[in-house]
């Protein structure tokens, strides 16, 4: 177990800068999720921690020791790859024990460690199979078993669930989280799925275009997004945004709709702003509500999603109630003013 510190890390391929001055602290035993849109540099960052990618600038430290020039095998890290990367000609047990075999660990000890890991992951009955004879979820477990067997300082995961179907993904998500709680190891987990990030992380690092947009506990990113990018990335369906200005103590959108505010930050009046409200923070009806023209209603059992127009802006709402309005009709919704986010239109930053 160990901490990982990333200091002003940079990575460039010729003239393209892929990682631009990233600094992250991962505490001992923490589960950190790197999340961001495709191509933002998550994998590159993870691979730099692993030593699979050279470092163009800055430092990677594990337990305080600079790793920049240390070869991957000496970093004492284990990585779980997106497509599992299991050796096809080896059995499950051989796959899991391979790193120990290379370290010249005794056969009996390898066996014991492999069996223990197989037990944790309920793989014991599959130890003699080859990867080809396993299902996707089982292969995923073997890949994790291979990491566990090594008892590394840090576990690295690169989108390990993206090849699984939706149901299995949810199940494995829970399993990885349980594994983390059981082993108490430091884990860095890459995903582009914000739900995975929210549900699994102790700390989320939200990246965009080679930079960190915001990092912190999941609910902090959800409750207090630092800018428009974070606000739109975290949460599903994503936050509603309305351009406008504050006039006479209320927010007026460009199409003239007046939306409620709990308090007005000083100096916010008069300049172009963005009003953000999450779909789940809209209520049906209510005094002081606004009229929304219904476009589509999607009942999903436990909740109902509403797609409509607020003035000329698009609006999405998620309600616990069932809605019977038809397209073209108008419903009244009220933003809960405590949960409104205001952003500066020019910089995109939170006020």
């Amino acid at each position, binding site marked *: 177990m160990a901490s990982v510190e990333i200091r002003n890390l940079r990575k460039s391929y010729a003239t393209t800068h892929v990682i631009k001055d990233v600094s992250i602290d991962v505490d001992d035993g923490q589960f950190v999720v790197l999340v961001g849109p495709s191509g933002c540099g998550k994998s590159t960052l993870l691979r730099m921690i*692993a030593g*699979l990618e050279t470092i163009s600038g800055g430092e990677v430290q594990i337990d305080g020791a600079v790793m920049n020039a240390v*070869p*991957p*095998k000496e970093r004492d*890290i*284990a*990585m779980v*790859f*997106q*497509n599992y*990367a*299991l*050796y*096809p*000609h*080896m059995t499950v047990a051989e796959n899991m024990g*391979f*790193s120990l075999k*290379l*370290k010249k660990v005794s056969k009996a000890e390898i066996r014991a460690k492999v069996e223990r890991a197989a037990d944790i992951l309920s793989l014991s009955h599959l130890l003699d199979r*080859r990867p*080809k*004879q396993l299902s996707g979820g089982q292969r995923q477990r073997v890949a994790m078993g*291979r990491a566990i067997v*090594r008892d590394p300082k840090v576990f690295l995961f690169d989108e390990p669930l993206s090849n699984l179907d939706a149901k299995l993904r949810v199940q494995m998500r829970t399993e990885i989280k349980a594994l983390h709680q059981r082993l108490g190891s430091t884990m860095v987990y890459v995903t582009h799925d914000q739900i995975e990030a929210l549900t699994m992380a102790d700390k989320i690092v939200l990246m965009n275009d080679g930079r960190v947009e915001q990092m912190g506990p999941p609910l902090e990113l959800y409750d207090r997004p630092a800018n428009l990018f974070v606000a739109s990335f975290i949460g599903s369906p994503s936050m509603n945004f309305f351009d406008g200005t504050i006039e006479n103590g209320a927010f007026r959108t460009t199409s003239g709709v007046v939306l409620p505010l709990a308090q007005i930050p000083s100096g916010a009046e008069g300049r172009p702003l963005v009003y953000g409200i999450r779909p789940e923070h809209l209520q049906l009806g209510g005094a002081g509500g606004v009229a929304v023209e219904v476009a589509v209603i999607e009942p999903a059992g436990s909740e109902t999603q509403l797609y409509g127009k607020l003035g000329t802006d698009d609006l999405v709402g998620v309600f616990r109630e069932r809605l019977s309005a038809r397209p073209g009709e108008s419903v009244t919704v009220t933003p809960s003013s405590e949960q409104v986010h205001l952003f500066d239109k020019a910089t995109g930053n939170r006020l």
Partner: protein
Amino acid sequence: MTEVPSRNAGGHGQAEKPVRLSGEPFAWRHLLYLAPGLALYALFCLWPVIQTIQFSFHRWDGITDARWVGLRNYIQVFTSAQTLTVFGNGLIMIIFYAVLPVLIGLLIVAIMTRIRIRLLSVFRTVLFLPQILATVVVAVAWRWIYAYDGPINALLSAVGLGSLSRAWLGDFDTALISVGLIGTWINFGLCMVLFIGGAQKIDTQLYEAARLDGAGPFQEFMAVTLPGLRGEISIALVLTVTNALRNFDIVWNTTSGGPGTSTLVPSYLIYEGAFITRNVGFAAAASVVLTVLILVLTGVITRLMRSED
């Protein structure tokens, strides 16, 4: 595993379906569609094979009436000192035509998986070139290279090793090796191209996983590259072993089997028997033995190289 056959044996009538595509009952008429192809195959492939087998039990000079001699030709093939040397030469050729090219090919691929080689496609084309060139051209070129006044000897005397120079193809000690190395040169390009193609299909994450697991270059090769190239190695061996045992044109165009019998190979012996010494029965028996040898060897190779699943 065991449930699969029993399910078919259960016989819900499903097992038979794929055989009869249209669902209509089998009719002899269907064989008619196969007839033209089968006829050509029989005429140009099966018939000569059958005839050869038939000849192998006869004594025949190709002109007068053939005389049944039973197994005598085969006994001669297996007892004559010369024939045994010739088949021995054929087996030695396997080392040069098959084993060496495959080993060199694997070595280069192993290096390439560690170091990216620029101009890969140029490299590949150049290496594959011997495969496209007519063998006669290759043989003539190498005859010149090996000649007493050729570049190899010139190079040797230039570096002060002139005492080693000789007529490489005319020397009892070096002729077989020299002919063999031509085969190595021809076939190694083929192996390379097969292996490079195979190596490019191997998932790069496997190499990274091996590196993280702590594998060095050799262990990485054994754990990732070699198993990944299993199919390609098998194909390369089948092609080159067949090539080695059938080898005729290179020998014909460089040494004609000489000096003495030192580079005589089975195909050459068969050619001599059939068309020069007019001992057709013996040549046929040797052909049958050679064919069986090739079938057995390639069979063993494919069986050994087949992955267990």
